[in-house]
């Protein structure tokens, strides 16, 4: 079994797994690297370009890890969404019940 799961069944994707935690850790790091990297690159400092490149790599890795799971969650959830919205609207119109 691979360390990063890229094929999800509908039920599996609804669970919180290590792929979520990897995205949760990488995501703010990507923000930090890109923020600092853009500023220093704009000043044409060589290490700014390195930091920015690291931020881009982190962004790509994060999407590679989390995108299959998010897609699977979305596909499964959409099967139920109409029902949830109908229930919500019924609860809002409480006088009709």
């Amino acid at each position, binding site marked *: 079994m691979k360390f990063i799961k890229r094929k999800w069944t509908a039920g599996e994707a609804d669970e919180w797994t290590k792929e979520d935690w990897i*995205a949760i850790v990488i995501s703010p790091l990507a923000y930090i690297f890109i923020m600092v990297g853009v500023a220093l690159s704009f000043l*044409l400092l060589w290490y700014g370009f390195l930091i920015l490149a690291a931020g881009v790599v982190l962004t790509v890795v994060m999407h590679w890890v989390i995108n299959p799971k998010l897609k699977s969650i979305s596909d499964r959830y959409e099967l139920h969404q109409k029902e949830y919205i109908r229930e919500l609207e019924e609860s809002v119109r409480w006088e009709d019940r």
Partner: protein
Amino acid sequence: MVTFTFLDWLWLSLFLVLMVVCGALFYRLGKRSEADFFLAGRGLPWWLPASSVYATHTATDTPMWVSGVIYRYGLSGLWYTFFSAWCAISAFVSTRIFRRSVAYTQAEWNTLRFGGLGAEMLRGWLAGWQVFMNMFILGWVGIAMGKICHMAFGWPTWIGLTVFSSICAVYVLSAGYWGVVMADFQQGVIALFVIIVVSVWGVIAAGGASGIVSKLAAMGQSWRLNPFAFTGWFDGHFPVAWFLTMLFIALLGGFGMGTSIDWYPEAQRIQSARTVRDASYCIWWGSLLVVVRNSIWAVAILGFFVMFPGMTQTADYELAWFRIGFEYLPAGMVGFFFAAIIAIHLSTVSTHLNLGAAYATRDIFQHYIKPGSSERTLVWVGRVATFILLIGSFFYGLMMEELTEWLIFALWLMSAGIWLPNILQVVWWRFNAWGYLAAWISNLGLSWLVVWILPEFGILPHLKDFQQFWLLMLLGALIYIPVTFLTRPENMDHLVKYYVMSRPIGWWGPVRREAERRGLLQKVKEIT
């Protein structure tokens, strides 16, 4: 004072016509239903609400604020703008959970997460607070626009406050959120383009990138190039303790809902995305653009610093970026720059007009006054609420000078003592409506005590912001945690329904087991 040429007026006129017409074109979509007027029918691809996230959080006062912290603290000032990074984690946690709830607003979410009287009280309180806050923010950014117009053209401030917000109201009133998000897209593109052009112009004016670096070295100010130029563990303008507190608040806040004032407009964008995946990406990419924008601005402000060092008045150096645009762009481009300032302004105004109206319509009118209203009625109520918010914002804007200090304090009330409860409501099944209400109420009193009253009587020293945060968080917890345990948990049926729909992260064991027992979820072992 700025003098416009014919070309400047042309840019400005074309932009205003383009924006109003593009927004109003969606009139027929906006009037179809309440869901269209406030959520664009929940069908947007991620890049549209992402551009709206970015455009909304680029307001007229934002470049002033960024200019202020960068001029004072150099690149380490970027961390003052890093609070928006709560979205980095929220995109994969609270965004996902909120999108699955299908709630229109955060107030409505309260009645899905909690039940009974407590939930109703929370919904009413939050809805009223949000109507007020959106009107206040509209007044705040409106008066900032008034000041910019006064600086540039010598107009009285009320003209800048009222004219552009009124133009914006044309497409918000006609097309609702459809108009907001479509106009935000073009405004976001124009604003980003101009931010890059003006900042590059500023850097060139300061002698180029290498010129800025060498001039800072010659001035003995090279520390301004270091984003991690700490001044000690607890002392100075950039202590490590402040930095760690900021990271803690910003990043862990992504596990909760409402941990940042920006959550409320983002929640609307989250629900307008067509899938859970689109919702996550709209928040992540929209906020990344905010972070990148701040970095671009920061370098231009460093350029301004080497040209005009030694400014001591905040009111002077906060206008740095606007001065670069108005004073250094060539004739014919100034109108384009001003059009971009209007784009920045209107994207924020349109969002808060529609968002405040959403709370007034969905959570107050429909929920408490006339639940059986037709879609047509709800759209019209949305329009009336939008108009009232617009007029109310003018009054707020004109009073803002006297109110600012108090209202900043009101914002503070929303953050420190409520920060942890806003996370607990998402991650802990046992946290109930009474605990959350107790947190809000106790925070009102504790904030007054810690920030104003106790220091005034010498009982408590005047604490720094980050010290106040930790103290308020601790004192609040001493109240709402006992209240939570002394009151009943939420009804299990209600919690199971919420859990199956939203699948929240955190400590939800008893609810999950009950859902499995009822056959509503498969056990993890069976599906792996």
